[in-house]
């Protein structure tokens, strides 16, 4: 099959990502087991249509990733289930923020604060999407931090326009809470990944 090596490499990449979420003692064995199935699926004589075999192989690899992410008992599984619960309301909130920001810019194109709100909304959307794709990446942390700082700037801008309104000050202080909580967690998560990774094929 044309592009077979690239397809297998992609499948192996997905399986490797799945295995990273498993405890270190079973990681290598699971990686060997799951990657051994990839060429077998790609050459399955019962499936005649080659592109369909490729889809099945990639589906197999992607579903191992889903399965390990949702496995109960692992920290990753708990985080994934929690994330799955908050994801839909968060995505709806993102879309509402962006839609309201665009509407506000159209209504008052001369107001700089509206553009700042729009930037905040877009950063919010980007950080949620990025967090779904690669939760532990450096870019995820950067986007999340930028979104929080943009929200902070929006609230301080509101406070500057209405200095007597204490709500803006309280909200600005509250917005900083997730940042203060998130940064140590992100640091711990990266250290943990660095400590457990890089020992075997499944980690590479």
């Amino acid at each position, binding site marked *: 099959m044309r592009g077979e090596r690239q397809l297998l490499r992609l499948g192996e990449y997905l399986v490797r990502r799945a295995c990273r979420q498993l405890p270190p003692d079973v990681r290598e064995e*699971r990686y*060997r*087991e*799951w*990657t*051994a*199935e990839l*060429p*077998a*699926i790609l050459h*399955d004589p*019962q499936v005649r249509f080659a592109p369909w075999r490729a889809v099945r192989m990639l*589906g*197999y*690899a992607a*579903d*191992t*990733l*889903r*399965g*390990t992410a*949702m*496995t109960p008992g692992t920290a990753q599984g708990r985080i994934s289930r929690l994330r799955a619960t908050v994801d839909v309301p968060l995505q709806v909130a993102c879309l509402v923020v962006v839609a309201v920001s665009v509407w506000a810019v159209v209504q008052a194109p001369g107001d700089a604060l509206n553009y700042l709100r729009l930037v905040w909304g877009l950063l919010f959307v980007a950080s949620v999407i990025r967090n779904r794709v690669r939760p532990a990446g450096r870019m995820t942390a950067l986007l999340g931090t930028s979104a929080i700082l943009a929200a902070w700037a929006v609230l301080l801008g509101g406070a500057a326009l209405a200095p007597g309104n204490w709500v803006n000050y309280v909200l600005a202080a509250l917005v900083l809470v997730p940042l203060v909580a998130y940064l140590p967690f992100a640091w711990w998560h990266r250290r943990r990944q660095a400590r457990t990774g890089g020992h075997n094929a499944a980690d590479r």
Partner: protein
Amino acid sequence: MRMTGPLERVLGAFLADPAAPRYGYDLMKAARLPSGTLYPLLARLEHQKLVASAWETPQQEGQRPRKYYQLTGEGIRIARLELAQASARRPRASARAGRPAPGSLG
């Protein structure tokens, strides 16, 4: 053991030929389950010592060995029992669902 739909299908696939060792993809097709559902189930069954696993010896140079799963003696006994209980529960449940509510027509 808490019987679920996927577990029932995996046990059914194993019991179709209890003596035959089955690899993951084969079981996926037989039980019509995705890999992300099947492998955690197999890991659980293996942990409970109802399923045993072994690596195949590669037939050709460069071939990656596959891992085969097979029900243990205890696994066969429990699987048969659980599947029989599940199928005994099913007609009762479907009969309850089919019975008209008191006071309704029919």
